């Protein structure tokens, strides 16, 4: 059985062109960018080129707005903790949507231990932030408001431009976690009124262990990794040259190819949604149209997500689930609970995320496997 990989939200392959491009930075041109000799300068140039490419992907004011990190988790930590601690005079509050990634919510919870308040912003059943309530919820003492561009578990794309207007009317900073969105859909940080934006290298076919944080000119942050003062003093540590150069090339390719590729994936996504929604007691999770082009997510009544994942794997098809049984805490996904699902409903979730390796010829194989899986597990269920 040929592998059909549908878990691009968890990990992605590195684009062969990215690998070919970045390889020399771990073999021949491996200098330390802080060194003044020619090898160091070559490395320095590679990093500045990558910074330019990443800035172009999101229409940043200029390349100095981009800080490279070790990935989305570090970028989110930096945005939440770094901004909150640096702007403490403004107040001791952070705000985040209830469906933020755990690498946003946990730094916010850590701040609570040092006296910060956390405001959780509710979402509707489709996962969209309630814009009507947002203006009332956000108080003047909020140092940073974090709302993701698109959610990784339910695919919903947030109305960031409208959110940005509300946050700025209050004179507050908006952080946007674009891990699932960057490289998939067009992002314009200037038009959307974004102050801080998280990106992940691997989520755009770049090397793992790479990420970036866009910081709008004028936004003040406290470094969370003090040391040798790399990255304008905001992120110390010798640069991960391979990941950074690779991320730059991945950003360039994503910008070039995003349009047709997202149209292609959207067509496949919609066919998957149509076919799988025909299964009895199956429901789409997230927004039906305001969703990532490669993202199809569902829940099935009376069966459990880990069983779905394992059963699909027997067809050599890899999917994800928000079921409690696969989480470290044995709690169901906070995202599915935040969109109003009951615990027993959240247990039966399945997330499919498409990528460049997938093609329309796989669709009948996938839908057949899902139908058989649901049918088999429903024979077993007492509910």
């Amino acid at each position, binding site marked *: 059985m040929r592998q059909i990989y549908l878990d691009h939200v968890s990990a992605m392959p590195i684009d062969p062109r990215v690998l070919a491009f970045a390889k020399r930075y771990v073999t021949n041109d491996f200098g330390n960018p802080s060194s003044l000799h020619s090898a160091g300068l070559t490395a320095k140039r590679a990093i500045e080129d990558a910074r330019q490419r990443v800035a172009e992907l999101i229409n940043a004011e200029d390349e100095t707005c981009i800080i490279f990190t070790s990935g989305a988790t570090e970028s989110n930590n930096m945005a939440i903790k770094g901004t909150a601690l640096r702007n403490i005079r403004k107040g001791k509050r952070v705000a985040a949507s209830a469906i933020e990634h755990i690498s946003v919510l946990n730094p916010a919870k850590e701040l609570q231990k040092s006296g910060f308040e956390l405001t959780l912003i509710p979402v509707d059943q489709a996962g969209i932030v309630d814009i009507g309530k947002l203006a009332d919820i956000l108080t003047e003492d909020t140092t940073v408001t974090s709302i993701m561009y698109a959610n990784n578990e339910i695919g919903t794309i947030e109305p960031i431009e409208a959110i940005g207007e509300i946050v700025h009317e209050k004179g507050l900073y908006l952080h946007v976690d674009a891990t699932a969105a960057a490289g998939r859909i067009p992002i314009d940080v200037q038009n959307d009124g974004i102050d801080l934006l998280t990106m992940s290298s691997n989520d755009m076919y770049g090397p793992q262990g790479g990420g970036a944080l866009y910081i709008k000119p004028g936004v003040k942050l406290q470094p969370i990794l003090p040391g040798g003062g790399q990255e304008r003093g905001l992120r110390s540590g010798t640069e991960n040259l391979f990941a950074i150069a690779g991320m730059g090339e991945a950003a360039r390719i994503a910008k070039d190819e995003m349009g047709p590729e997202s149209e292609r994936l959207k067509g496949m996504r919609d066919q998957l949604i149509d076919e799988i929604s025909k299964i009895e007691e199956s429901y789409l999770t997230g927004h039906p149209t305001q969703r990532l082009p490669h993202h199809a997510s569902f829940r099935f009544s*009376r*069966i*459990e997500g*880990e*069983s779905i994942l*394992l*059963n699909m*794997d*027997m067809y*050599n098809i890899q999917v994800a689930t928000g*079921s*409690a*049984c*696969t989480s*470290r805490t*044995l709690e*169901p996904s906070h995202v599915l609970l935040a969109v109003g699902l*009951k*615990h*027993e409903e959240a*247990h039966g979730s399945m997330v499919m995320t498409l990528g460049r390796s997938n093609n329309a010829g796989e669709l009948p194989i996938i839908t057949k496997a899902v139908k058989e899986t649901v049918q088999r597990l429903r*024979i*077993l*269920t*007492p*509910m």
Partner: protein
Amino acid sequence: MAQIGYSEKVMEHFMNPRNVGTIENPDGYGKVGNPVCGDVMEMFISVEDDTISDIKFRTFGCGSAIATSSMVTELAKGKHIDEAMEITRKDVADELDGLPPRKMHCSNLAADALHGAIEDYKSKKVGK
């Protein structure tokens, strides 16, 4: 395709569970778990001369919940009820070549469901 965390035996029982289904008018019936936690198991037994002559199960839950249910039916079938009462959660896990640590509790309730079915049989018998 070995699953990380699950033994081959767990996966074999997950894919080909033994004794799936229900028994009409069972001599004993046990049910444990609840849907909020993500695991529900029910066990049906037929008993002849205090020996489990037939056993069936239905399970809502993860891979190990299904595999442990299947395994406990295999272990209990043909056993005297006193012997079957002695089957522990650990026995079930051991027979499956172990379970991942975090699966030892919540999805290893199959022995409890079996014991529930035997208790139900005993209480009915006393009533007769």
